[in-house]
Structure formats: structure tokens, C-alpha cells
């Protein structure tokens, strides 16, 4: 199964006029994995998804599913099923007939296909509503019908276009669990397009971060979160501070970077950087301590411009003189032991190993969706 649902995307480009919606993208999605494509609107993630589904044809390049070239194969004939963002349930058909639609196309007898459709509806806990029309359902129920309609084709790959975006927060979290459970159960490849970072992190085996038609990074959520490739990925996925400095010395793979304020930072791994170069590195917001006096190295000083209680931690935003806020996630007990007021000047420090060199050059902020 796993090899049958593996996807190879090779040098795929999609042009709209002269605009490159997807720009020479290479990507391997392992069979049976849960892949989340994430990026701001217009980054090409939906176009890429639609090319895998066959609703768009690549301008150049090749798409293989299970080793078979499907670049120009007919939609609905390549082992994929797409779940639409607005679900696109047929308004004139009952749930049963909606789910049975692809079987009707295949010419399967009415009784058999309705029987199969009812079983599939049972599977998504909607058996009792089988004779209703889509307009009589809630958003969450419609979504499960759409899921059932996609799954009844026994696809090798299920493609989900922002499947949770139309649901309220509570339902979104519940459906998220359901999707993951379903994927485990079926063992097929899920490709899920989203613009919500926690969704991608929570669901995916592989996260594909895109920007301007390019794949910025494709890796496990853990890697994306701990080793972002570029300032863009660090900022877009959130939870990171991005700092800039000039390389003052290197030794092996390590380097020392000096900020504009004159503070030195140790980068444990920055192979290939040269002295005098301006580079960026990231520091996780939850790995920073507040200390009583300015740190000599690996720290900075700033004025508190905002604090936000988040339940399990407190988000403290500092103005450090650069254009970007520096944010610290303080454990709530530490903060409540000695609350920090807005306007106060505080000192931050972190372990040298926390600084992560950002190799990529994409310095855009993406959409500021992060928490």
C-alpha cells in the first residue's frame, strides 16, 4: 500500500500567464504519510494540490503516484480524491446519493451503490441522516459527508483543501483528531492544505512550507519547528525569534555573531558562513530566561511593550530597538512569582545551543498569523 500511494513531484511548474503559481517544485511524499502543505494565500499550495488531483495541468514537470506518471491522467482516474474547501456537496441529491455518486458514474447498480454509500455514512457517524439533503446539515456534518464521498472511491491519496477552515474552533479540533484517526486506520496518503500552523504541526508526518510558488522547507514538524530553514519559515511557523548579526569569527562549524548592539552570540552549528557576513538565526521563545542583570553573551535587553496571559504561559513582547518584536514565553509560575510590568526594561538570556542558524535567505514575514 505504502509504495502505491507514494507521490513524486518532479520539477513541476504552473504558469498563469507569466505568473509562476508553482515554480519548479520537487517533492517526495511517502506513501501512507500525512502531509500538510502550509503557506500564506497565493503561495501555490492549493495549485500544487489541484495539480496532484488533476484539476490543473502542470505547465511543465512530472507528477507520479505510486511510481505511475499521472501528470496528464484524467481526474478521477488517478487514485486521488479531493475534498473541497466548501465541500461542494450536490444540493439536489440526498446524502446517500452524494456519497454514491462516483459509484453511479462507474455504472454500479442502484441498490448496491446505495448500500455501500450507507455503510460509508455509518463510518462517519451519519447513517441516521442518510436520506437528508446537504442543506439540512450543519457544517461539521457536511464535512463528514464530503469525507465519505471522497473515501468511497477507495483512493490511494486523499487530498484535502483547507478542510477545517469553515468550522468553528471547537469543531475544528474535533475533526482534526478524526482526520488523523481516519488516516491511521486507512493507511493511505493524506495531503492537507492549510494556513493554520498548529493544524499542520498537530497532524502532519511531513510539513511542506511554501512561499511564492517555492517549497521553502519540507520536513517533519519537529524539524520545521526546531530547525527552520529560513527566517520566513521561523516567522511563519511561529514560536521563534529571528535575530540578525554579523559573523565576527568562525571555528570549524561554529561561529560567533555580533549584533548591532554589540552583543555576541554563539552559533553551535553554522557551517559555511564566512567572517563579516550578515546572517540570521532563530531562538525559540520558550527557551529564554529573564535574568536580573544584562547578559554578557547570548542575551539581550529590551523594554516590555506588551504582556499576554496565555493560561499555561505568559507572552512577553520586548522592544529591542530592531523593527521586530522579541518575544519571550515565560512559564506562568515564574511570571506570577514576579510579574513584569509594561514599560519595564528586562534582560533576557539563553543557552548557546538554543541559537539556530537560518541558512535560507527568504526573509519575508509571511502572513502574520502566528498566535
Amino acid at each position, binding site marked *: 500500500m505504502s509504495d502505491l500511494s507514494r507521490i513524486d513531484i518532479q520539477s513541476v511548474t504552473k504558469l498563469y500567464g507569466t505568473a509562476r503559481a508553482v515554480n519548479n517544485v520537487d517533492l517526495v511524499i511517502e506513501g501512507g504519510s500525512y502531509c500538510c502543505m502550509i503557506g500564506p494565500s497565493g503561495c501555490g499550495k492549493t495549485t500544487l494540490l489541484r495539480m496532484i488531483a488533476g*484539476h490543473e495541468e502542470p505547465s511543465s514537470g512530472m507528477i507520479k503516484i505510486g511510481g505511475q506518471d499521472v501528470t496528464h491522467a484524467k*481526474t*478521477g482516474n488517478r487514485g486521488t480524491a479531493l475534498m473541497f474547501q466548501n465541500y*461542494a456537496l450536490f444540493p439536489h441529491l440526498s446524502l446517500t*446519493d452524494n456519497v454514491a455518486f462516483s459509484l453511479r*458514474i462507474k455504472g454500479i447498480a442502484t441498490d448496491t451503490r446505495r448500500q455501500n454509500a450507507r455503510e460509508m455514512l455509518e463510518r462517519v457517524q451519519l447513517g441516521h441522516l442518510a436520506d437528508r439533503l446537504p442543506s439540512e446539515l450543519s457544517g461539521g456534518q457536511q464535512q463528514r459527508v464530503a469525507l465519505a464521498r471522497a473515501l468511497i*472511491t477507495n483512493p490511494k491519496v486523499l487530498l484535502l483543501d483547507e478542510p477545517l477552515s469553515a468550522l468553528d474552533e471547537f469543531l475544528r479540533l474535533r475533526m482534526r483528531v478524526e482526520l488523523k484517526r481516519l488516516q491511521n486506520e486507512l493507511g493511505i496518503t493524506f495531503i492537507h492544505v492549510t494556513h493554520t500552523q498548529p493544524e499542520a504541526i498537530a497532524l502532519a508526518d511531513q510539513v511542506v512550507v511554501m512561499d511564492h510558488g517555492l517549497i521553502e522547507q519540507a520536513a517533519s514538524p519537529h524539524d520545521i519547528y526546531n530547525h527552520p530553514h529560513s527566517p520566513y519559515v521561523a516567522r511563519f511557523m511561529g514560536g521563534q525569534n529571528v535575530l540578525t548579526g554579523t559573523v565576527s569569527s568562525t571555528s570549524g562549524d561554529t561561529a560567533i555573531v555580533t549584533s548591532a548592539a554589540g552583543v555576541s552570540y554563539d552559533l553551535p552549528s553554522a557551517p559555511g558562513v564566512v567572517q563579516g557576513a550578515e546572517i540570521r538565526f532563530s531562538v525559540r521563545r520558550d527557551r529564554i530566561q529573564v535574568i536580573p542583570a544584562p547578559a554578557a553573551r547570548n542575551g539581550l535587553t529590551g523594554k516590555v511593550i506588551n504582556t499576554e496571559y496565555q493560561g499555561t504561559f505568559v507572552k512577553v513582547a520586548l522592544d529591542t530597538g530592531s523593527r521586530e518584536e522579541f518575544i519571550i514565553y515565560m512559564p506562568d509560575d515564574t511570571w506570577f512569582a514576579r510579574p513584569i510590568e509594561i514599560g519595564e526594561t528586562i534582560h533576557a538570556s539563553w543557552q548557546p545551543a538554543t541559537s539556530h542558524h537560518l541558512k535560507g535567505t527568504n526573509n519575508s514575514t509571511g502572513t502574520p498569523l502566528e498566535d
Partner: protein
Amino acid sequence: MAQATQKRGVGFYLLAAFFALFVIFLYGPMLVIFVLSFQGPSGGLTFPMRGVSTHWFNDLWTSTRYGDLGGAFRRSVMLGAMSLLITAVVCLFAGLAFRKRFIGAGPLFYLAITSLVVPGILLGLGISQLFQMLGFRLHWWLSGLGAHLSWTLPFGLLIMFAVLNRFDSSWEEAARDAGASPWQTLRYVTVPILFPGLIAVALFGFTLSYDEMPRSLLTVGGRNTLPIEISNMTTNVTTPALYAIGTVTSVISFAVIALAFAGIALIQKRRARAKRGA
């Protein structure tokens, strides 16, 4: 409730009076004709009524004074039916095509709309001249039909645009995703979803053709359609039979509309039944 107990301003009464006038103006004449058509045998074209009878309806069918009224009626219904069919089919596909920004879509659209704007009598004149130049004879089912289509097609297209406005093309994509061919998508998804709207388009195709006069006048050739025949009657006939024909044609128009609504209701009922799991 609280609002209803508030005192209404003078504006309300002015607007209500205006609306009442509007309704009287709209339905008054029709009502007068309807009532006068049941004039007694010795009655005239105006009130008062001299008894109530169906004499003038009877007179319509039996008398020879009114020319080929039955034939004119048959031709108008046939012409309306052809317009209905062609308008519905052409406007469906034209509407679907206009969703894609094909080359020349803009000019083509304005060209279609132009024939709505051009005075019908001029268009009819043009068609009859063209037919004579080409050496074709004018026939109600050929040049007449063409003249009517120049009216019903653009009208139907505009309605089709409104219908398609509420049509989500991801339904078609979902059908394609399920493996449907373009033909299957059209048959199982596009047309069924659009069907109530298509009935509206077809209805306009019929009614616009059925009562069309200026475009018919110079294009139907030797045999008249009903509106022309009635128009002639207004100058020749001086009996309430004139009102009787007015009542008959109005009833037919209403019957067609009622039929269309019944059709839509039937579809909805069938869908409701399908939904209950037949």
C-alpha cells in the same frame, strides 16, 4: 408589535396610495376586458353589461368574421414552443460558455444585447429585406422564428447569467473528481441543479414569443400569428368578441406560467421523495 402601534407618518399613506394606483393601473384594464368579455349577446364594447353570457366566446369559434383565428393561435403556440426549446438549450450552453473568458466574449455579449435594444419593427424589416435579397420566402416558422429568437435568446441569456450566479463550479469539479465525463457531469450535476432556473428561461422563451408583435409583423409572411391577428381585429371587429379573445389568450399565458410552477413544484416533490429514501 411595538412598531405596529406607532403612528404612521404621512409618507406611508402617500406611498400606499401610489402603490394602490400602480396596482389598479396594472390589473384594472385586464379586469375590465375580462368582465366585458362575458357581455350579453346584445351588449356592446363598453359598460353597462347587458346580461352575462359566453356568447362572444362561442362567436369566436363559430363565426367566420374573424379570419383564421384558430390557425393564428396554432401558429403562435408552435412558434412559442420552438422558441421555448431553442432558448432553453442555447441559453444553457451559452451561459455555461460565458463563464470562461473566451476570446471575443465581451463583444459577443454586447452584440447579443444589441438585438434587445434595436426596435423590433426595424429588426423585422431588416430580416424581411435580407430574406428577399437572398431569394427566400418569408415563413412564420423560419424568418418569423428567427425574428423571435433575436428577442428571446438575449433575454434568456441574461436570465441564465442570474441563474448561474448562484451556481458553484466546484460542483462540476467534484463530479469530475468522482470520474464523471463532461457529458455525465452535465447530465447528473449541472442540468439537474440548474433545472428550476432553466424552466424560468424556457418560460420567458415561450411568453416573449407568444405575444411578440413588432418583430412578427414583417417577418411571418402570408400567415399571421395571433398578436397580429388580434391587432387586425381591433380595427375590424366592433363586438365584445375582441374581449373574449383577450381573455382566452390571457388565460393561456397564465396556464403556461402555472404549468411551469407546477413543474418546479413537482421536481421539488420528487427530490423530497428521493430524499425520504424511495
